[in-house]
Every structure is written in structure tokens, then in C-alpha cells.
């Protein structure tokens, strides 16, 4: 499909997303498939951090896209930044799911699996696992910001839109979270 060439290793950028959205709103199903394919890995990864297991994460990710598609046609068509919009939906779906399951803490067993890329060396792999575990142990608000910034590679402004926090608050909480992670990592190294 012609739109598949738009997706590269890094996913789609904002201009490409706008182009795809316009095509989707004019009825191009190929563009819809491309849009979903481009954002599915990110949303699934986000849902993995916020749900109990892989099955729930996949359900949440799928429900996110279904809701987004229904919203695309409402009220004169979608306007605004698509990525924060998608993450907001995913966030709310995960909250509802956890509320149903009465689950608030992420257990270490439910963390997403192996990192995306392969790197040789036991030490590097162990460090990554440590960082993931330490991230899971952060306070929920700080963890959310760290995941959105470093796992999902969102910009600070987008994070502010998704969380509803002022930009400065996002910056200061992120700084505090990084400081905490660094301290915890140094403590782990000393052990």
C-alpha cells in the first residue's frame, strides 16, 4: 500500500499523521490501516505498563483504536494533535480496566518483556532490567511521566496535554523522577 512507505523505523511524524488523517476522513481505508499500524506498537507498550498482563494490554490497545476511530468522524472531523489524543484514550481505558480489576500497583512480573533491541553483554542487559524495575517502583505520577517521556518518546508539551498538567509541573516532576531513579540505581550498584 502506498501509505506504508510513510512508516519508517521511527514511526510517523506529525506531518505524516496529518496527511494520513485527512485521507482517512475522506474514506481511504489503506490510510486507516497505516495509521493504526504506525501507532499500535507505542500504544501497546504504553498499555503493557498500565495493565496486569499481556492479554489485558492487547485488549486495552485495541479498544483505544476503536474509540479513536469512532471519534475521528464526530463533530466536523478530528482536529488537533493525534498522538496526545490517542494516549489520552489509552490512559482512560487502562484506568477503567484497573478500576474493574481493583489493581493500582504494577507488579514486577507484569512488566513488558525484553527490550526492543538486542545488545550483547550481560551487564548491559542487567542494567536495563534494573532500570525497568526501578521505573515500575516509582510513584504513579512520576512513573507516568517517565514512561510517556522515555518509553513513548513524547514531547513535554504532548505529555502536558495528556496528563492535564502545566508544562512547568511536568518538567519539575520529571526532573525529580530522574533524580530518584539515579539515586536508586546508585544504591543498587553499591549492593
Amino acid at each position, binding site marked *: 500500500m502506498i501509505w506504508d512507505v510513510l512508516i519508517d523505523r521511527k514511526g510517523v511524524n506529525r506531518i505524516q499523521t496529518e496527511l494520513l488523517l485527512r485521507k482517512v*476522513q475522506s474514506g481511504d481505508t489503506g490510510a486507516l490501516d497505516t495509521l493504526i499500524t504506525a501507532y499500535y506498537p507505542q500504544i501497546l507498550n504504553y498499555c503493557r505498563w498500565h495493565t496486569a498482563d499481556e492479554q489485558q494490554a492487547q485488549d486495552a490497545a485495541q479498544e483505544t483504536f476503536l474509540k479513536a476511530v469512532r471519534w475521528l468522524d464526530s*463533530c466536523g472531523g478530528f*482536529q488537533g494533535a493525534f498522538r496526545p489524543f490517542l494516549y489520552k484514550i489509552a490512559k482512560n481505558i487502562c484506568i477503567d480496566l484497573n478500576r474493574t480489576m481493583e489493581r493500582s500497583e504494577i507488579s514486577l512480573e507484569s512488566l513488558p518483556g525484553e527490550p526492543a533491541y538486542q545488545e550483547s553483554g550481560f551487564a548491559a542487559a542487567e542494567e536495563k532490567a534494573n532500570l525497568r524495575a526501578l521505573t515500575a517502583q516509582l510513584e504513579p505520577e512520576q512513573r507516568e511521566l517517565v514512561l510517556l517521556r522515555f518509553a513513548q*518518546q513524547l514531547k513535554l508539551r504532548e505529555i502536558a496535554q495528556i496528563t492535564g498538567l502545566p508544562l512547568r509541573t511536568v518538567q519539575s516532576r520529571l526532573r525529580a523522577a530522574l533524580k530518584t531513579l539515579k539515586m536508586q540505581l546508585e544504591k543498587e550498584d553499591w549492593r
Partner: protein
Amino acid sequence: MNRAFEKELSRALATELDTAAPKTLLRRCRAEHVVKQRSDWRDLLHCQFKLLGWKVWALEAMAALALYSVGRELALWEKAWTLRNALFGLSTLAMLTALLGLPFLYRASQYKMLELEQATYAGIGRPLVMRFLLLLAGETILLGVLVLNVRAAVPWSIGQLLAVLTVPFLAANNELLLLLRWVRPEWMMTGAVPLFAGQMCLLRFVQLSELPKGLPLAAGVLVLCMVLQCIRLAARSEYIAEG
């Protein structure tokens, strides 16, 4: 140091981009996505014209004619026909015209009457801009007629007249529309009182003899006012204060 740590953290938490979207999801999304037939900008403008444009212009023209006739009968105009009074009168007319649309906008907001916007690609902001442009077109014609009449009585250039008459006129008209973003419609009449007072103060400070001449100046002022208001009205954020 921090950058190195952030890079390391990004790599540790990275997303697997090779995860493919399930085919069932793609099929379901295609089934959910119903493409609606939408009209374009011209159709929307034509629709707005039928709904709003000619009725409001007719209303304004009738109101202006009625005021003029009553004033002539009472011999008011010979005594009161100064430029300042004319400016104040025009500002008042502009505000009253803007207020006419308020009950409609309030009801549309309260009951989420978005059928017109949903039929187009235009969202919520653009129909409002169109309504503004249509109202402005009618008021510009009215203003043009008044300018010609005033010029007969006052020996100034058309450029000076346009500059002096249009700025407070447009400002008064659009201040009320912009107030919709912050003031609830049922309080608009109260909100309009300080605007009236502000317009009167504005007129007090206008030194007409110091204004430069030239139609380009007046045209520039007019265009600037229109563009600024269009930009602000076309903003996507809510333009009516919610209760």
C-alpha cells in the same frame, strides 16, 4: 551526565516497533469507520448566508432606517449630528447586532446543536468565523452608506472618515463576540455596559485633526481589525463560556 542517563533510560524502556497490529483490529476499525458525506467551505458559506446573513442585514437596515426616521421627525439630527455622536451611535448599533446572535449561540452551546458543524469538515470555529464575516459584510455596506452621508456634512477625506468610523465600530462589534469566551450569555447585557463606557472614553481621546490622510491607511486599519478577529474566532478552544 544527565543526557547519558536519559539515553540509557530511553533504551531500557524503548518500544518494540516490530509489533504488528492484529488483522482483526484493522478489520474492526474499518467496520467502525463510517465516512460521512461532508460539504466544503462554499456550501457552508451558502448555508450560513441563508440562515443568518440576509436576515440580519435586513434587520440592521430596518433598525437604522427607523432610527433615522424617528430622529428626523423629532428634529434630533440637526442638533446631535456631530462625529462623536455618530461614532457612538454606530458602536451601539454594532453591539446590539452582535447581541442578536447570542440567544442562538447560547442555545446551540447548551444543547450541543452541532448538526451543521458535523455536516462539514469545518469543526466549530470556522462556522463562527463565517457568521462573523457575513455580519461584517452587511455592516460594511451600512457603514459605507453612513460614511457617504457623514462626508456630505463634514469636510474630511474618505480615508480619515473610514479610519475613525471603522475602528471603534469593528472593535465594539467584535469585543462582544470575544466576550463570549469568558462571559456567560445571560450576563452579556451587564458585560456590555463597561464596553459602552469604554467606547465613549475612546472617542473622547480621538484627535481627529491629527489623523493622517489616505485611503491606504484606512484600508490597512480595516484589514488588520478583520484579520485579528478572524484569527481569534477561528481558534479551536471553546468560544462560549460554559456554566
